[in-house]
């Protein structure tokens, strides 16, 4: 960026613009989901979410009243009513499908035999005729209207109460929290042993942990499911907690060991000299000092378990009561792909918690990534 003085400002501009475009490109998809979750079904089906900030034009028709609705007004027979939906502004109207925008608001159309139709600015129409109307079915009035941008929170209300998402949210919570807490404890002790205790096989074990980091989950699915069935666990929360604990341990041990190795040797040595037991050293010195690494792993594991679909599908089952949010989303995508408003809202709720955690704890997440970027889900 340190060019010659004259080039500098134009280069800075170019960098700013390029960076902005890149950020925009990466943000737009999520923004689209967010905006869509506040639109109702018709809006989603009729226009793209990016058009939702400007007024949208729609063309449709309504039927006028029938002969039964007519009233007499002096010499004229009159049918009156409203041609536009509530809250929409009339742009143009017409009487034939071939030319649905023939007239401006306020103009009067000649229907023949002295009959007229006019639609006012506010969308009310007035149909008059010197003879009584005889039709049993209303005439069509074609209207082009403009609806102001409108957003609704109705989707959220519906999804949270009626669509089983509340239940799925609880299920996901139930899976995630124990599956995040338990591996931390087990890994912390193991990491301490690997980092600060002398024993034969230490290097081998450390290497094994690094190796196990990349074992594909797919390999573990069938054997573990059978194992769980044989020892009577079957499909259920206990099984999925144990599975996530097992799958999360290599990363936990790896991250924590790397961090603990870097703690100052003098502190630990002097504690040993003072007669502290290993257990005391671990609890009083290592655990508090390792807080950043513990937090990093906790976030990783939380995000990973919350977002997981595969392990939940295999170890928890797929009935409506058992589904976690990712599973529910998948089902919504498959069976009810047309109900966009439900899909968008459910998806946004399911990613809201990880996003909150992400933005609140980004510092620790980045630190953890830098400390051990080997795991791959």
């Amino acid at each position, binding site marked *: 960026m340190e060019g010659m003085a004259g080039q500098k400002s134009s280069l800075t501009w170019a960098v700013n613009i390029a960076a902005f475009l890149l950020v925009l490109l*990466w943000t737009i998809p999520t923004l689209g989901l967010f905006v869509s979750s506040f639109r109702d079904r018709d809006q989603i089906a009729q226009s793209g979410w990016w058009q939702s900030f400007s007024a949208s034009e729609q063309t449709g028709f309504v039927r006028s009243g029938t002969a039964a609705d007519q009233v007499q007004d002096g010499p004229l027979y009159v049918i009156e009513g409203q041609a536009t939906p509530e809250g929409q502004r009339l742009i143009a109207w017409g009487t034939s499908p071939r030319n649905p925008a023939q007239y401006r608001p306020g103009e009067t159309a000649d229907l023949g035999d002295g009959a007229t139709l006019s639609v006012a600015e506010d969308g009310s129409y007035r149909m008059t005729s010197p003879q009584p109307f005889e039709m049993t079915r209303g005439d069509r009035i074609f209207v082009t209207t403009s609806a102001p941008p409108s957003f609704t929170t109705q989707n959220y209300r519906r999804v949270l109460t009626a669509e089983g998402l509340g239940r799925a949210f609880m299920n996901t919570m139930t899976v995630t929290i124990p599956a995040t807490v338990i591996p931390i404890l087990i890994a912390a002790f193991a990491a301490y042993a690997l980092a600060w205790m002398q024993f034969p096989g230490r290097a081998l074990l450390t290497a094994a942990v690094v190796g196990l980091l990349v074992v594909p989950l797919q390999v573990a699915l069938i054997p573990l499911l059978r194992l769980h069935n044989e020892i009577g666990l079957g499909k259920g929360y206990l099984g999925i907690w144990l599975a996530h604990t097992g799958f999360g341990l290599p990363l936990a041990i790896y991250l924590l060991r790397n961090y603990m190795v870097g703690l100052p040797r003098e502190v630990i040595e002097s504690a040993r000299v003072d007669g502290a037991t290993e257990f005391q050293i671990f609890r009083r010195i290592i655990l508090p000092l390792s807080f950043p690494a513990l937090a990093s792993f906790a976030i990783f594991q939380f995000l990973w378990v919350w977002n997981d679909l595969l392990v939940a599908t295999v170890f928890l089952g797929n009935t409506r009561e058992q589904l976690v949010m990712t599973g529910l989303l998948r089902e919504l995508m498959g069976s009810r792909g047309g109900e966009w408003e439900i899909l968008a809202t459910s998806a946004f709720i399911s990613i809201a918690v990880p996003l909150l955690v992400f933005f609140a704890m980004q510092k620790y997440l980045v630190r953890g990534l830098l400390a051990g970027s080997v795991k791959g889900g």
Partner: protein
Amino acid sequence: MELFWLAISTIVIGVFGCVAWFWGSNWVLDRIYPARGPQAGDNIRKANQIRPWLFLGPAILFLTMYLVYPVIDSFWRSLHNANGSRFVGAANYTWLAGDAKFRESMVNNMLWLLVVPALSTLFGLLAAQLTDRLKWGNIGKSLIFMPMAISFVGAGVIWKFIYEYRASGEPQIGLLNWIVTQLGGEPQIWLTIPGWNSFFLMIVLIWIQTGFAMVILSAALRGIPEETIEAAILDGASPLQVFFRIKVPQIMGTIAVVWTTITIVVLKVFDIVFVMTNGQWGTQVLANYMYDWSFRANDAGRGSAIAIVLMLLVTPIMVWNIYNARKEVR
């Protein structure tokens, strides 16, 4: 509510159980070999030999049961028929070799392997360099990093709103088709175009992984010694030359780490394909194919064989990681 209490009690039991094990076993060890009395020195030595295994015990148990045993068991199952009742030798593997869908999955996985790590690293590097000295750089970084927190399924829904197709003439509600029609093109059903649809799925993963690459590479770029850059500028190097000739070569090691990490993610890619196309229209990948055979066709033999193929593909990276980790320890 019941569920809530179940979760809470599990946390309490789990945490309490762990603490009880670590504390209790230590206590027992200290009783058996007390660190005082006539044999204090001998006792301490013996206790110190045993203690690491108490600390490691639960972890080793879990790792063995949930990762080591399954690899062996999967291999063993892959040599058996669908329900594991009959030993069939390498029959599942020879079947794989002749299976068209398996070949399609392999080809797709290789395509994913070529494209996703390359583009994620490239965009990550670009993002890291561009946002590095901007005032709003950290906000920009957060936003590019954000998709990492989103589940693959959520990302599938998000990108559905990009790829959605409506017949020509109707209002397009998918962003991509809207852009295409605005430019005068015909709307496409992106996820069914043979050959190209895989790329539209890959874009989703690239979108997720770029943030990861950016974070790591950004830290590496900041770690480059200033003198090397200043020297190059004094010698009249242009900003582009500084970037490609001075900076990139110095962070090659980090680029390799990022590349291999994303490679592992890619090898195991499942959710994106599972929810967006389910392997139809020629987009099948190994992980999803494995799921199909294991849990839809209920053929543990063939499913395990595919899982073992995945395992074999990961192995070189595993060896490389172990090699590097040991080098660091020394």
